[in-house]
């Protein structure tokens, strides 16, 4: 781990000013990504600005029924928050099914959105990787890519986005609130994650020194019956192979409202819009569910070892829809 200097700040404007003024600096929240990647020389900041004293840890009601998660609220605190559990269970579940209790106590929700990919070549400074070292190539294309993405990929990068929380936020149309040298911004979650394209090193539209101050969850009554389903190689303490965030209402046998997002399959938390189009207003039947899953994965591109994810993705979507429809009927 290379030497770093350290500052601890207690107000937002000092935090932003300090990082913005120094290109070699980075924010330090829970450190569960930052310290890990510093140690293996993947991230190379010269200075860390500790933001853990900033007053951004609360969960607040928004006028109109939404909820604001402070950027530094811990994964564990948000997951256990009674209002989050009641109105947005998929958010709580996406957090509780991620990492471990220890990591969830450390990690902030802003840091969760900003976490880097788990591609083994990205984490290995000896390997060619366009994301870590632009222009060097992508070792995963023909390498060990069982965990890699089948949606949203490019010729430059196929790394899966690892955040579970991000998937629930995509289903909810959450808004990321930031503050930077140029002032405050509200960024729809879909725009907060960039596809790799030809610039996989660029994952977010943030400028250097721009701080994620919070995440706004819009009011969405159907989200009170939402779920997060995560399929992985072991039952706990593991990233997703496939994950589905789902909220659906069924009226008179037809799908009245549907929110569907996918994890583990794509280079960014993935809103399943093709599936939603098939499902919207359709009868809540096995046939609709299968057609929706087929539509969403129609554009999937396998890269050898990860081909199984296409079928697993379809089956998980169908399962999520089937179980949710059953619950809606008996409700």
């Amino acid at each position, binding site marked *: 781990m290379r*030497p770093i200097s*350290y500052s601890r700040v207690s107000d937002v404007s*000092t935090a932003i000013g300090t990082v913005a003024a120094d290109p070699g600096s980075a924010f330090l929240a829970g450190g*569960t990504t930052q310290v890990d990647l510093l140690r293996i020389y993947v991230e190379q900041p010269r200075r860390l600005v*500790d933001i853990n*004293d900033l007053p951004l840890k609360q969960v607040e009601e928004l006028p109109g029924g939404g909820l604001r998660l402070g950027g530094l609220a811990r994964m564990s605190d948000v997951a256990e928050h009674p209002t989050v559990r009641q109105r947005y269970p998929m958010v709580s579940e996406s957090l509780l099914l991620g*990492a471990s*209790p220890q990591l969830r106590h450390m990690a902030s929700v802003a840091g969760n959105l900003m976490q880097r990919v788990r591609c083994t070549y990205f984490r290995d400074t000896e390997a060619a990787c366009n994301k870590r070292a632009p222009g060097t190539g992508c070792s995963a294309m023909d390498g060990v890519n069982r965990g890699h993405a089948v949606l949203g990929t490019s010729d430059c990068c196929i790394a899966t986005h690892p955040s579970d929380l991000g998937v629930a936020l995509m289903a909810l149309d959450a808004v990321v609130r930031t503050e930077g040298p140029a002032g405050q911004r509200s960024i729809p979650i879909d725009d907060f994650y960039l596809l790799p394209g030809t610039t996989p090193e660029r994952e977010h539209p943030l400028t250097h020194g721009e701080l994620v101050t919070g995440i706004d969850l819009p009011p969405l009554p159907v989200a009170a019956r939402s779920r997060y389903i995560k399929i992985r190689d072991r039952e706990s303490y593991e990233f997703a192979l496939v994950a589905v965030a789902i909220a659906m209402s069924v009226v008179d046998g037809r799908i009245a409202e549907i929110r569907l997002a996918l994890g583990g399959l794509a280079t960014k938390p993935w809103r399943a819009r093709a599936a939603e189009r098939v499902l919207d207003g359709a009868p809540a039947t096995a046939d609709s569910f299968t057609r929706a899953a087929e539509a969403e994965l129609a554009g999937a591109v396998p890269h050898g070892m990860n081909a199984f994810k296409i079928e697993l993705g379809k089956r998980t979507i169908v399962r999520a829809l089937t179980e949710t429809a059953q619950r809606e009927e008996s409700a």
Partner: protein
Amino acid sequence: MKSPQALQTTPAPDSAVVRGPDEVEVRLRVNGEIRRLSIEPRVSLLDALRDRLDLHGTKKGCNQGACGACTVWVDRRRVLACLTLAISCENREITTIEGLADGDVLHPMQEAFLDADAFQCGYCTPGQIMSAVALLAEGHAGDDEIKEWMSGNLCRCAAYPHIRAAIRRVRDEQGGDRAAH
């Protein structure tokens, strides 16, 4: 263990100050005692505890957040010392396995691990115990919950059934989900 120094509070570091990259003076409160050490900001809490403070109970398994061997408490919450910078723990209260016993009297969880034969090589054990005590305090100790809420602590010897038995025993002795730290 409880020196008079333990009652003092550390003043908040000045926000504008840049510290390091060379060694800087850091004051940590570990197991109720203020410890002064000179470390570079990049030093993890795990390395500070083991290499500078001679507290070898906390173990280094993976050094990347994947095993839980380094579990300690910071402000009474279980966290991973390998991904925590020591310097970021000023003004926080650190508790390690060495701080769990009351003098020569072992913590009930330590007793239970002995009684239940909840280890083989013992390498993961300090982390398991720190996690287990915290688990009871967090209130996730139902029979069907322990497995999930202890999943952040791996055991290469697969002592899991006995570890869970030890936790259930302490839970039942203490009458429910809450245990005193």
